[in-house]
Structures are given as C-alpha cells and as structure tokens.
C-alpha cells in the first residue's frame, strides 16, 4: 500500500468572478522512500493541490480522498490535522526568509516545533536536538549558529534551517514547494544533494513541486505534469523526458534552451495558460496545442495508459503509440491529426499557426 494515495481530488474557490477550479480531479500515489515531482506552469494548481492535503488552503470546496497512513486527510478535524502536520508530513516552502519568523532565533523556532508536538521534551533536550539537526543539514558551527536570527543566515543556510525544521520530528512525507527557486545554481545543487542524502538516510517520501524540469530530472522518481488543474501526463521520469505523450509535456521539453541546439530558434508553446474561471471546452490545452483535433474541442480526455507497463499515463486524444520525440512518433501524430481535424479544429490550428509566438489575448 502506498504511503499517500490521493483519489479524484477537486478544489475550487468561489470568487466574485465565478468559481476558480484550481484542481479538477487529480489522483496519484507516493510510496515510502520515493520522490514524486509535480511540474506545471504558474496557476496549474500544483501548490493548491498539496496545500489542500495539509489544510493550508482554507475557503476551498474540496472533494475526493487523500489516504495517508490509514487516515483520510480531507476529513480530519483541524486539531487532528495539526498533529499530522509537521510530525508526519512536513513542508518546505519556496521563500525561506518569509517562512522563518524574523524576531525569533532559528534554534528557538526549531525547538518550538519539537515541543509543540511533544510536551515531555525539555527545553534543554529540544535545543540539543536543534543543534544536532542544524549540523545534519550542513550548517557550520551549529552550536553557535543555533542562537542566530534568520537575517544572520544566507539564503542557502535559511533553506537548510527550514529543512532542519522539517526533519525535526522525522516525518514520513516531506512536501517541498519550489524549495530551490530562490537560490543560485550552486546553492541549489547543495540543497538538492542534501535532500537526496537525507532521503536515503531516513527513507522519507518526498513530493517536489517545481516548474524547473532540470530539478525534476535530477531528483524525482515519478513525475506528474499538471495543466489547468488536471494531470496531463504521469510517468516514471525517463518516460516523461524521453517518451513524452502529451503535447504539453513535449512542448515544455522543447521550450528549454539546450546546448545541442544552441543558437537555433526556441520552440515555445503558443499562447498562455487559461483562466481557471473560464476554462476552454474539451481538453483545456486545445487552444495552444499544435495537434488539435475535432474531438479535443468538445470531449475532455481521461488519463489512460499509453505505455507497456501501465505506469505511463496521459490525458490526450492522440493514439497511444504517439509517445516519444523521434520521427516515427511524430509521423503517428501527424496522421492522427490528418484524420481527426476538420472544420472547427482546423480553425483553431490556423489561429495557432497564424500567431505562433505572440500572446495576443489578454487574460480575463
């Protein structure tokens, strides 16, 4: 059984302009000792998804199930959830400066975390534990630094302190929401290495939310690609990077500048992510998709198996065999599009081709 099993999770928020459907039926599992990477553009719902699991996105209408170690996180009362949060599921946020309290010493903040979950721990014991944790995450001279304030730490050290805090109660699952986005590449490498090492030591499960495909390639075992609140594609990371099926995944991979094609023109995805209030009909990606067919405009595709193992799943009407970046896969796509595109879809395709790189429309 998986450590975390999320089934058909839906979250929407009502606003003056209508309901924002942030998450629209996402299912996934995370196993002990494994890393799930969740990728997607801003507004794809990746952060709302994980914050809902922890009860950190108040005001949303939530449905679905999220079984974690025998409990459904979505039905827990706030005080029960507080027991889970920090102790069993820890979170590392993007911006370590705003997630640490500026007026309290770093050590005090770690101690508070430990003592609020276990009152029997004395202050002295908690401080000892904080020193040990800071040492474990690679803060030099932890015995002195435990008495520092957050502003005395550099960005990388603050993120290490956040990781120390996350580890304090040996959680079973760590959710890291863009943990390295605010950091330099060299420091990012340090932090990713640290996370991998800690995971090996303690067999923790990790959910890594990021928009950086490089980070996913490095650290994840499985990858969930999100678009407009739904899973576009889900697979082992090798399948995602070498045999992408969904045109959105393919588009993301192609829009990254890389050394083998240096100097060539980049291939961006046309247009911009849709408004979550006014979603396009059918497949939400169709107004930006180079392979748009008639049925894409009206029917929403389900996430179905496209690989031999059943692990590789994609929500796209293209034939199952159209996975990959090679010529033969492209040929299958081209033939499917020829057969599947008439009237309405042809107009959409024309619009995409006519304005290949401009973002003409204004967001609603």
């Amino acid at each position, binding site marked *: 059984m998986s450590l975390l099993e999320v089934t058909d999770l839906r979250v929407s928020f009502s606003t003056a302009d209508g309901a924002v459907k942030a998450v629209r039926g996402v299912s996934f599992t995370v196993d002990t000792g494994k890393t799930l990477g969740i990728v997607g553009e*801003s507004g794809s719902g990746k952060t709302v998804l994980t914050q809902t699991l922890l009860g950190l996105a108040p005001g949303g209408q939530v449905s679905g199930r999220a079984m974690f170690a025998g409990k459904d996180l979505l039905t827990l009362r706030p005080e029960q959830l507080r027991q889970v949060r920090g102790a069993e599921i820890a979170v590392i946020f993007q911006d370590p400066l705003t997630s640490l309290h500026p007026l309290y010493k770093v050590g005090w903040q770690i101690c508070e975390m430990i003592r609020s979950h276990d009152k029997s721990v004395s202050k002295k014991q908690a401080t000892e534990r904080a020193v040990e944790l800071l040492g474990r995450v690679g803060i030099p001279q932890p015995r002195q630094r435990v008495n520092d304030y957050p502003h005395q730490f550099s*960005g*990388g050290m603050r993120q290490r302190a956040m990781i120390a805090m996350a580890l304090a109660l040996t959680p079973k699952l760590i959710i890291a929401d863009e943990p390295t986005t605010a950091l*330099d590449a060299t420091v990012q490498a340090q932090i990713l290495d640290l996370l991998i090492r800690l995971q090996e030591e303690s067999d923790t499960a990790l959910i890594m939310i990021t928009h950086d495909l490089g980070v996913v*390639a*490095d650290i994840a075992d499985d990858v969930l690609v999100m678009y407009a609140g739904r899973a576009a594609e889900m697979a082992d990371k090798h399948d995602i990077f070498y045999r992408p099926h969904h045109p959105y995944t393919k588009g993301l991979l192609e829009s990254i*500048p890389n050394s083998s094609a240096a100097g060539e023109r980049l291939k961006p995805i046309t247009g911009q992510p849709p408004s979550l209030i006014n979603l396009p009909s059918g497949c939400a990606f169709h107004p930006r998709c180079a392979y748009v067919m008639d049925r894409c405009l009206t029917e929403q595709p389900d996430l179905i198996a496209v690989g031999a193992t059943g692990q590789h799943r994609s929500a796209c009407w293209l034939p199952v065999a159209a996975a990959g970046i090679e010529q033969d896969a492209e040929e299958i796509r081209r033939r499917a599009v020829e057969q599947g595109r008439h009237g309405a879809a042809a107009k959409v395709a024309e619009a995409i081709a006519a304005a290949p*790189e401009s973002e003409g429309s204004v967001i609603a």
Partner: protein
Amino acid sequence: MSETLPRDAATAGPGGTDDVLVRVDDLVKYFPVRGGGLISRTVAQVQAVDGVSLSIGRGQTVGLVGETGCGKSTLARCIAGLIPVTSGTVTFEGQNITNLSRRHMQPYRREIQMIFQDPYGSLNPRRRVGSIIGDPFAVHKTASGSARKKAVQELMERVGLNPEHFNRYPAEFSGGQRQRIGVARALALRPKLIICDEPVSALDVSIQAQVLNLLADLQQDYGLSYLFIAHDLEVVRHVSDSVIVMYLGRIAEAGPKDPVYDSPRHPYTNALLSAAPAADPDAAASRQRIILTGDVPSPINPPSGCRFHPRCPKAQELCGQQDPPLEVKAGDPSTHVTACHFPVQEGEVLARSGRASGGQPR
C-alpha cells in the same frame, strides 16, 4: 513600420571606431558603509565591482553570469550611467561617458536602455500601458499627441501585444506580456544597446522561450547589442556570442561562448556549469557535480589573493597570497581569458566528492 519610429535603422551597423559599441576599462564601484553616530564616517567599502574591463560589439550579445552578489547588476547600472562610478571609464562609440552630468548624459540615455527582471515591479500599476510605453517619447520630446500614440501602437505590435490594448493597465496582462511591455518601452527610442537584467527569470519556461525569441528577432531587425545578465547558464548560452563569468566583483573567466562552455578553465566556471540542472535524467545521473562549499564571501571584506580560493577545490598556498591576472591560458584562443593560477586542464576531474557526501560546508 520601422521608418515611422523616431530613429532610423540605418544608424546600426559598422561605423565610427571599429566595431566596438561599448568599452569598459578597469571599472570600480565601491559603496561606502557608514557607521552610526552623529558624524557618520565611512567605516568600510562594499567592493561591488572591482576592476572589470569588457567590450560589447555592435549587434553582439554579451552574457554576464555569476551568483547573487557578484556585482553583475551593479556593473550593468554603471554602464547605463544610473549610478556614479568610483573609478575607471565607460566609453560609448568612442566617447567617454563616465560620470557625465545629467544634462550631458541625456543623449546617451536614448542609446542605452534597460529591461528589468521583475515585470510586476517595473511597471507602474496605476498607469495605462500606452502611457508607460510612450514615456520615453515624452521624456526625450521626440513625439507627441497622435504621432506618439501611433508609434506606441506600432511598438506594441512589434513585440507581440495587441495594439488595441493601449488603454489597459499592467494588472490586466500576464507576466510574459508585461515583460513584452518592458521590451517595448526599452525599444521606443531605438537604442543601440539594451541591458537585460534577468529578463526571463520570473517567467514560466514556455513563456520564457517566447520572450527569448522576440529578443533575438529584434536584434536581427535593428542590429541591437545586448548585455544579457542571467543566472540560468543554458539561457545565457542560447543568446550570447561571448560570456563573462563574474565572482565577487571580478571577472573570473571570459571569452567566446563555445570555449568557455566546452572547456572552462576557471574552477568556478566548472562548478557553475556542473551545478546547473539539466532536463535530462541520464545526464543528471551520470554527471559529476562539483559541490562548492559555503556561500559567496562578503564583498566588504573579500578574501586575500584569488577571491575564490576559500571555496576552490584546487586552491593552493599561492592562491591565498597572490591575485591571479586575467590572461590567456596555454592552448586557448586569444579571446578566452581566465584569472586563475592553476587553470583546469582538459580531462581533469574536479568533483571532489560524490553526491552522497556532498553539500557539507567546511
């Protein structure tokens, strides 16, 4: 449409002194740190940029990379004349423009424009897009009334915005579109040099590619030169003709992009390149990462000798004593310079430790 823009496209291209548009010689910028008390004396100096020389050719893109706090943005602001220079010179088309008065600098402001990182912070939220883009025309009194509106709408079209959205506010645009507004504003006076300070860092990857393509098109059409600052090494490789790697206010390595990326000589360049995440699982698994220990030291009190030596995997005694000159190393082309006593040789493996034990400062 370009003929109706205030300046003619024909001004770009070779002419004047050789083909160098901007030359920076031994530029130094120190910021004073003042003590408290009644008479605030200068107690220390932040050595943000400490002796940097470079040149940018016409129609060329120079990439500038380095970690936070290495002085790349300060250098850019010195070149644009936004902050006074402590010492050294900036030459634009053969004219010394260092520390000119506001009035004398005015004509050069038209030639050098900037695009900033944050498309949210760099646009006034209470002004309409049309008036934001039209500002340069107003400031330099080059167009007014309907001529200005026409020019602005042409600019909007050129950068891929709908000209009908002239009267909208920045909040009505997405991040990528806002960055296009920033590009249109920079382009308005047909500058010769645009300094791009992390222009795509705040954008999603698919939108980032759109903006990079736009910048490439504009360069081709108008013969623009770019000074392109970014921390994403793949982006810099994609856009640049030559690359400068900065560390703590100094140039660590510089040269045409291929030699710098393919056979980097400075251990810091090697570390930066190895740290950049590649979107390729197999490459990520097989790569030997050089994990640098600790953080960038304070520029108030930089290390003696080579400024990189406390973090350098190859550091020896000499490195702490003597500052290495920026020079061509044996076997490199004459344009590829490195400031290192013990440059990395071809085939040399720098990775000190595997990932399992890495990331432990000191």
